[in-house]
């Protein structure tokens, strides 16, 4: 490695890094409940997201029970089934994945990885969490109100979302829309913090091109979310008005249950445009932080610098930009001008290029690396395989002619679960196993972790591979019960039973993880400050878990990029970002 010196290489004295004014909590309540410390807020976000995620997991169990054993569980009637689908989808995509990646990992890692004391607007950051929490509570009230939660499907397409024969039309749809509006307000507050902290809060020497890819992923995803969520906001406000005061933004003149409704002249397609203008970037809002985190996990646990760092950054930005011009590929069957279909198919397929660059770079990082099969690494490897699988079926569905027959089949369900369900969740698990020692000071149990990984990883394949096949046979999604159909052989029913059994087992394996999380807080092996011998700044804090203000008296100064692993000639196989260069002699 060549040392190209810029500026003076001498370590800086403490006086040169001035102290930032920091909010100091005065009581237990302001320290742990209404805390303005990004680390506490991160834990609050993560806890709430995981808790509501568990609810969504149970909902998926119930759905699978119905699909695997139709008619056995009489309490799952068609209405209930639609409610399960809707709540499962919405919770997983918005309230779990988005909140956990950006609110959870974003809050914890941005200040620590960048060498800041906290977010730049801590008070707004605190509000962000509490509004998110309120959004979750409002969402959950849907289960207890008359009529239950909405059963409109997670896409909430009008007109059916607010017609009287859709379950949850009474209250469910209202609380869903209100909850989404709250979520977006809360997210915007957090998102402003993440963006401005990345731009303004970096430690001295931390140039943009020295940031770990985790931060690049979270940063790009946050910018995208800030631009995309307003579309859902507008859609939700307009639909709420349609439902509550009878405007006709999305509702056409319609006859429902033999009765002519007062709506006139609304455009359901308008909602689809607004929804997918948010909905497609949302896929990458979830995927980009996962890409970033996985890059760091692979590099750390293969003891090798990330291959093609610059290309990785450019690819993240390119994917972020492209994801805004592909939304109508979710609407091929809604009816559109053929040349629009061509345009959106082309942009969709172009995204495969930067994505493929990333996959190659991960694989090349592994090549001749010193791979440690730690639990975080297993999850990271599992992610690469799963993401490639899900991505390839995405290439099928991105083409109009292939999409039209496959649209609304279980193939689509299998595709998006692989690519934006299982893949990001694997990263979340990997990231939790990786950073848990920093958060608590204790390691998660390794054997339980490996058990959790193998059951989840293999189980996910046993669930979703057969589901592709069922979809290719033409079994439609969103059906409570398909009954006897000429084109569906009886083996489909057997496969469905198999999938259900596996899904129950995989779900139960998550309880092992939950147990591990709680048990290891006190009983886990003490971790020390830097158990993975990683280079990034969060592992170099003076205390573990990091104290209020993160860095003690002086802020760290950054001298190198985030991936100095196995540098030839160095004493250790990693050089922390804040380690000054050795002065050259002669």
């Amino acid at each position, binding site marked *: 490695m060549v040392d190209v010196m810029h500026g003076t290489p001498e370590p800086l004295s403490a006086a040169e890094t001035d102290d930032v004014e920091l909010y100091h909590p005065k009581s237990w309540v302001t320290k742990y409940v209404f805390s303005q410390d990004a680390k506490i807020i991160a834990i609050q976000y993560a806890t709430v997201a995981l808790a509501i995620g568990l609810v969504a997991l149970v909902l998926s169990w119930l759905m699978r029970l119905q699909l695997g054993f139709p008619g056995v569980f009489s309490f799952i009637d068609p209405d209930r089934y639609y409610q399960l689908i809707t709540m499962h989808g919405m919770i997983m995509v918005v309230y779990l994945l988005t909140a956990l990646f950006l609110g959870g990992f974003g809050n914890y890692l941005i200040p620590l990885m960048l060498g800041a004391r906290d977010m730049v607007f801590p008070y707004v950051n605190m509000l962000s969490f509490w509004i998110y929490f309120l959004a979750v509570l409002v969402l959950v009230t849907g289960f207890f109100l008359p009529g239950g939660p909405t059963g409109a499907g997670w896409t909430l397409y009008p007109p059916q979302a607010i017609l009287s024969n859709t379950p949850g039309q009474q209250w469910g749809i209202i609380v869903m829309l209100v909850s989404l509006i709250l979520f977006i307000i809360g997210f915007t507050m957090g998102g402003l913090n993440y963006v401005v902290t990345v731009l303004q809060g970096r430690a001295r020497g931390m140039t943009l091109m020295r940031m770990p890819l985790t931060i690049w992923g979270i940063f790009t995803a946050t910018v995208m979310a800030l631009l995309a969520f307003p579309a859902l906001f507008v859609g939700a406000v307009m639909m709420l008005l349609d439902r509550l005061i009878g405007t006709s933004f999305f509702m056409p003149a319609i006859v429902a249950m033999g009765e002519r409704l007062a709506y006139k*002249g609304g455009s359901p397609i308008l909602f689809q445009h607004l929804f997918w203008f948010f909905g497609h970037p949302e896929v990458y809002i979830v995927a980009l932080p996962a890409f970033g985190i996985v890059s760091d996990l692979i590099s750390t646990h293969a003891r090798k610098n990330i291959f093609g760092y610059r290309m990785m950054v450019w690819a993240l930005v390119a994917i972020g930009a492209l994801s805004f011009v592909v939304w109508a590929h979710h609407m091929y069957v809604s009816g559109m001008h053929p040349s629009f279909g061509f345009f959106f198919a082309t942009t969709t397929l172009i995204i495969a290029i930067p994505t493929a660059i990333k996959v190659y770079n991960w694989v090349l990082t592994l090549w001749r690396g010193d791979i440690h099969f730690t639990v975080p690494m297993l999850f990271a490897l599992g992610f690469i395989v799963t993401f490639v699988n899900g991505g390839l079926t995405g290439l099928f569905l991105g083409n109009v002619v292939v999409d039209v027959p496959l649209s609304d089949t279980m193939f689509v369900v299998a595709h998006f679960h692989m690519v934006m369900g299982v893949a990001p969740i694997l990263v979340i698990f990997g990231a939790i196993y990786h950073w848990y020692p920093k958060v608590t000071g204790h390691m998660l149990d390794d054997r339980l972790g490996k058990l959790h990984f193998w059951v989840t990883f293999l189980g996910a394949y046993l669930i979703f591979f057969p589901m592709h096949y069922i979809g290719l046979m033409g079994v439609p999604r969103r059906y409570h019960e398909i009954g006897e159909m000429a084109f569906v052989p009886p083996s489909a029913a057997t496969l469905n039973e198999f999938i259900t059994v596996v899904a129950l087992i995989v779900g139960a394996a998550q309880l092992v993880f939950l147990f591990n999380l709680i048990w290891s807080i006190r009983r886990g092996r003490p971790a020390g400050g830097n158990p993975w011998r990683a280079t990034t700044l969060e592992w170099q804090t003076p205390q573990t878990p990091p104290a209020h203000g993160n860095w003690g008296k002086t802020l760290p100064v950054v001298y190198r990029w985030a991936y100095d692993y196995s540098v030839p000639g160095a004493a250790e196989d990693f050089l922390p970002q804040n380690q000054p260069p050795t002065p050259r002699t002669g």
Partner: protein
Amino acid sequence: MGVVLGFMVVVAAVAGWWLSRQRLTAKPWLEVGVIGDTAPPSAPATAKLGLGTFLVVASSLFALLISAYSMRMAMADWRALPMPAVLWFSTGLLMLASLALHIAVVAARCDELGHLRSSLLAAGLCSLAFLAAQLQAWRELAAAGYFSAANPASAFFYLVTAIHGAHMLGGLVALGRTSARAFALPREPGAKALGGITLSVELCAIYWHFLLLVWLVLFSLLMRWTDELIEICRGLLT
């Protein structure tokens, strides 16, 4: 969705221009040592950047509303609304409020407490009067039988004015707090005391200029001055 795509192109262009100045072609693996800025960013720069980011988010919201509005206008059954004349009056009020805040910024920078107080007060009053005029427009339309549900044009009218008004209410909270601080200052303050308030006044002024800009766009859309422009854009896209 042409409007919002256009907006996204502008955002992407600005982001691309900014990124192009961030040494994205650097080879960080070859560079050891301290590089980059030496001075930490100042608090005013951080606050302005925070507000700027929020304004981009809000612009995205309005661009989407305008997109939806123009898509709906293109449908065959669109019936335009007669626009109440009071909207002209409210436009003038918002301009005055924006101007008053501009004067407040100048006064704060020159340490003229008296002028600062009076211009903050004027801005607040003009803004409240603006909201009252908007309410009056709502009432006139309702009285003429155009209440929201009857006609998509009026539904959109109520929606965009309400969202714009909600943004102004949020701004009024900040303006109120800034004014309270200005009026709490002693008669003859030191230069330092005003220094702290200057930033808040500047932020309010930026926000009000933004509200004015958005309102002018919305106003021209509601008054149907932009119909031809939209037609031309649609022609280009299809």
